[in-house]
């Protein structure tokens, strides 16, 4: 599990000396995608030739609206199938694998349009995230003795996470009563209940209260320090520059640049892509905007 992968240097150090060319090989990739193409009718939403994501780092995936970031997430996590291409997680090919199996392998994602379970309380949402629950099998569920101890330790872990996300006071509320930003937080916290090796966050900051953003950033960094890998889609450039070790830029389905935040920030192709569609570098998060590909 994540802790074992600590022997390689994590964070920026792991990527020192890696050139900023598109599709460049990484020293220890956790996800590798090759010639992945997804078309919707006439629209080619994703056309990624080759990309590698380094283990134990925080990678930002950025690009203008409609660049194909969400679709690419859907493809990598098997919530959607590409017309062409192969991709691997920890060297395991994922073509045709069921999405829940991908999550079980340790690659867990959140959704741009949140999918919190509105009719469950916050704490129940959290408990659902825990894996390997004895009480989730038909027979095991019948006897409370079988699962009550585990349920207690799951609840403890859930409460710790809720406290870290400053959501502990909402524990007993139905998730349907939360604001959009709170739902984002809950979904991220719930994904962490699975103890993922790689967590993929689709616009985690959209709609989140600015006062909370800083602590959330710290939290994402601490995930890396625990040895986990993070890939996130974000429009908030401050966040991208603040926490990411590596940035991958998409536009119109293709990768147009990658590198450290500084390298990417001064890349003319990137500025072009953004100016071409936005005329503004600090992009507005498109909360609830853009379609969600096959996962809606």
């Amino acid at each position, binding site marked *: 599990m994540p802790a074992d992968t600590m022997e390689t240097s994590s964070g920026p150090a792991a990527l020192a000396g890696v050139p900023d060319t598109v599709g460049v090989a990484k020293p220890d990739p956790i996800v590798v995608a090759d010639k992945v193409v997804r078309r919707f009718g006439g629209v080619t939403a994703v056309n990624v030739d080759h990309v590698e994501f380094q283990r134990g780092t925080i990678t930002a995936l950025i690009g203008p609206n409609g660049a194909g970031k969400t679709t690419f997430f859907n493809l990598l996590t098997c919530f959607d199938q590409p017309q062409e291409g192969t991709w691997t997680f920890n060297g395991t090919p994922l073509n045709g694998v069921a999405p829940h199996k991908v999550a*079980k392998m340790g690659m867990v994602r959140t959704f741009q349009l949140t999918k919190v379970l509105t*009719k469950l309380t916050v704490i129940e949402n959290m408990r659902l995230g825990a894996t390997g629950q004895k009480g989730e099998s038909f027979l095991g569920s019948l006897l409370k003795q079988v699962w009550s101890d585990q349920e207690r330790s799951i609840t403890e872990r859930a409460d710790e996470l809720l406290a870290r996300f400053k959501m502990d006071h909402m524990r007993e509320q139905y998730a349907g009563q939360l604001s959009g930003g709170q739902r984002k937080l809950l979904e991220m916290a719930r994904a962490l209940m699975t103890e993922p090796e790689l967590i993929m966050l689709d616009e985690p900051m959209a709609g989140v209260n600015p006062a909370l953003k800083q602590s959330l950033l710290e939290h994402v960094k601490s995930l890396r320090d625990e040895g986990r890998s993070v890939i996130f889609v974000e429009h908030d450039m401050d966040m991208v520059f603040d926490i990411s070790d590596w940035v991958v830029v998409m536009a119109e389905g293709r990768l147009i640049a990658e590198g450290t935040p500084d390298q990417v920030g001064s890349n003319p192709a990137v500025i072009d892509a953004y100016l071409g569609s936005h005329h503004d570098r600090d992009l507005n998060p498109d909360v609830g905007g853009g379609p969600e590909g096959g*996962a809606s």
Partner: protein
Amino acid sequence: MNWSNLFVLTVSAAIGPEAVRYILGAQGLNIHYGYTGLFNFGQAGFMAVGAYGVAIVSASEQAGGLGYSVWLGVLAGLVAAVLLALLMGVPTLRLRGDYLAIVTIAASEIIRLVIRSERFDWLTGGNSGINGFANSFFDANPFDNSHRYEFGPFEYLGKDLWVMLIGWLVIAFFGLLTFLLMRSPWGRVLRSIRENEDAVRSLGKNVQAYKMQALVLGGVMGAVGGAIYALYQNLALPDDFVTRTTFIAYAALILGGAARVGGPIIGGVIWYGIFAFMTNLVTEVSGTYWFKSASWLPSIVKDNAGQFPFVFLGVALMLLVVFRPQGIFGDRREVELDAR
């Protein structure tokens, strides 16, 4: 008009064998629709499979059956229900919800039409069904089958008491089972699937497998309902399993409150109580001289008085769904938080 008689008839019907059948069907639908969000519109098919399972297996060989005991017959009905659930679930549960609805309603009608067709007369008795297979069931009756037992104003034949005893024990058992399952993490997964399958998938749970378990469990409950009703009548009849049977079970569930253990039970009792009350009331009223000679009543009302209970219950159900969508027992918050 004899009100006390009307009261006795109403209460007897509300807890009688007919109500038992719908309650069991509704308990199954509560697992499917109430907790998991599966649209099974073919509960009548599961009930038919339960009824014909016991009928075919335990009818004597002269009557075209296999001549085994009724208990083995009930077991056969349950196995058949499991197979039916697998047959319908494997191709449809991976698709969006409406496919299951289409397949289940079609399958239940196919089952009914097949068992009532002449071609299968040798096996299912065609449209006159199979009868006379339940003798060993009534032989096991601790009450005297033909004796009338009195409880205050209520009177029951020993044979009906036996069916009601078994029926209510089974209802209690399924109620307890539902309670145990739904308070557990297993139930939490089901309720989550009802709301958002992809969220559950993203957390590494095998949604298809859970939906299949729910479909099988609820189908088996329906099959038990069908089997008990067939035993009660000592007759399995294809047209007891028309789609209306499914919808009455749904109505009972919605009336009582979906996703509540007591919902289908209370809902079934009230539904059948009201139905019996209305039917008896209409029979009494339409038999009076006053009704027959009331020239101001349009003939469509006079000629169709017997349909009135259905009209009444239909309107009542509509009002319920509009003004109290969570049913009698449901949690309003669960319904209202639906979307934002």
